[in-house]
């Protein structure tokens, strides 16, 4: 009976646990500012009770959180450029490989010197997690949202938090 309980716990663990290791502890000392959010299932459910459904921002997040079982964010702000290296991110990228993970979009902006990648984890043809790696000259951010993430709702958040709402691009008119 005890072993059944342990097996059941082991089977349930990956649902709420972080899906890949950040391994960025070496950057914490170098960063001028660090954001470290690590919220698992029970804490998320508890936090959801305090989200105000009447507030448009919080209502969106509350709706989004229904399928989420874990949120893990690390964001470092550096005073000088070149504090972090690509090797710091390689350890993360290596974990985000197929068939579990798919890189759905990557944006490299030489103008902003920003490189952002979005990965999606699928299990049984359902989204089971999202990873975002964003690297700027003086900022490094890694996100792992665990669970059935509604990407549309997640993208819809861009209209909130003071961010400009991105409208759909109208189809190009064919030239005659």
């Amino acid at each position: 009976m005890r072993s059944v309980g342990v097996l059941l716990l082991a089977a349930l663990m990956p649902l709420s646990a972080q899906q890949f290791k950040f391994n960025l502890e070496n950057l914490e000392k170098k960063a001028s500012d660090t954001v470290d959010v690590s919220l698992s299932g029970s804490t998320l459910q508890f936090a959801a009770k305090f989200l105000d459904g009447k507030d448009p921002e919080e209502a969106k997040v509350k709706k989004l959180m229904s399928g989420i079982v874990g949120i893990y964010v690390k964001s470092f702000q550096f005073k000088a450029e070149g504090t972090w290296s690509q090797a710091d991110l390689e350890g993360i990228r290596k974990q985000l490989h197929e068939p579990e993970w798919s890189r759905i979009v990557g944006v490299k902006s030489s103008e902003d010197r920003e490189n952002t990648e979005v990965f999606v984890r699928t299990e049984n043809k359902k989204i089971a997690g999202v990873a975002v790696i964003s690297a700027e000259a003086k900022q490094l951010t890694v996100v792992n949202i665990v669970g059935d993430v509604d990407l549309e709702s997640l993208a819809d958040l861009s209209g909130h938090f003071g961010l400009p709402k991105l409208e759909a691009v109208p189809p190009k008119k064919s030239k005659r």
Partner: protein
Amino acid sequence: MDWLEKELAKALERKEPSPDFAAKLTARIESEAPRRSRLFHFPRWMPAAAAFVMLATSGSLAWRRHQGMVAKEQVMLAMRITAGKLNHVQAHVREAQQ
């Protein structure tokens, strides 16, 4: 002195109690005293315990609320960061489409 005054004087005239009145009264007080104390006298520690329970309960509720608000703020911060990054990606993708 008319009849009314006579009646009043009669009604209000001093009457001595029976010789065993004091003994009866004392006996009755003694017989009722333990019953009263059982009904209305709490142990001395009871109010202190009640105050402690009330303080502990309200403190625990306040602490739980504080923890909930901190967790909520963390969720909102994580979502702000994620939305900001996705917003940036979307902007570039749409720019490329145009």
